[in-house]
């Protein structure tokens, strides 16, 4: 069944404590090449049947209204992934 994937990231200027904690932990494991980490959210919306333009539009609207808060977050990607 096809899924619509929605990716949400905190806006660049918003503190991301999870990302900060991860970037602090990476060098302790020997991963020394990464200077910053930002952690986002990935939503997978399963669709029973074909993903029509109308359904994709619904997903975009849901992404802007419920899945993200435009004050602190950006919807960075909405795409269809076939199963």
């Amino acid at each position: 069944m096809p899924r619509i994937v929605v990716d949400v990231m905190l806006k660049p200027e918003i503190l991301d404590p999870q990302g900060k904690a991860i970037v602090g932990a990476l060098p302790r494991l020997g991963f020394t090449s990464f200077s910053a980490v930002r952690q986002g959210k990935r939503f997978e919306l399963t669709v029973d049947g074909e993903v029509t333009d109308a359904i994709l539009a619904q997903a975009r609207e849901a992404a802007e209204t419920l899945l993200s808060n435009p004050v602190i977050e950006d919807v960075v990607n909405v795409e269809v992934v076939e199963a």
Partner: protein
Amino acid sequence: MTELPLIGEAAAAADASGARELAGARIGVVTFPGSLDDRDAARAVRLAGGTAVSLWHADTVLADVDAVVIPGGFSYGDYLRAGAISRFAPLMSKIVDAANSDAKLPVLGICNGFQILTESHLLPGSMIKNDHLKFLCRDQVLRVENNSTMWTSDYAAGQEITIPLKNQDGQYIADEKTLDALEAEGRVAFRYVGFNPNGSRRDIAGISNAAGNVVGLMPHPEHAVETGYGPESNAGTDGLGFFTSVLNKLVGGAK
């Protein structure tokens, strides 16, 4: 109610007729799945002399309440974002409409309730994780910056009050333009004094909407309404003024 009140009795003794009128004012307290402080908020309403009305998030009518408190807690476990799912509760759309209507329903959001009000866009900005990343619980000093709102009129302008603060996502943020507008319009209702406990922009602890009927703050006035149970300063009852403010405004007919 059997619990009654040193404070309520004192208020009643001072002006028995006024107390009867206050009791006629109905303050709704909304319970969401995961609300924590709804019973304390209802108790605070009663101690201040009003009638508390329990509201359920899935209700579709506001039950003729004169004002609404959206209490603290962890509605929906803070899943997605604090307040993000509660914002779409059936009762919230009624509250948003009533708050924005000519009737200007008074609404107070405390802690998670404040987060729900920002998610509802009744108040601008948002709350993110405390800058020190830890849950913090302490007695917090606030300055009342605006005593002309429906929920702050019983305080003096500039009065410092001490009430409990307890949260993890308490850092108030908004863009600079929004912050400047809040300051210019006198909509910063409360500021942290002495210590900013969460990195909130410009030490903001609470704000109001333009009309002054909607107020949100992170600290908990409903936990400081009874002698012996709140912070040690000022008998621990510094939070009572929120509830007496709205009751007096409602009874006085001033909006």
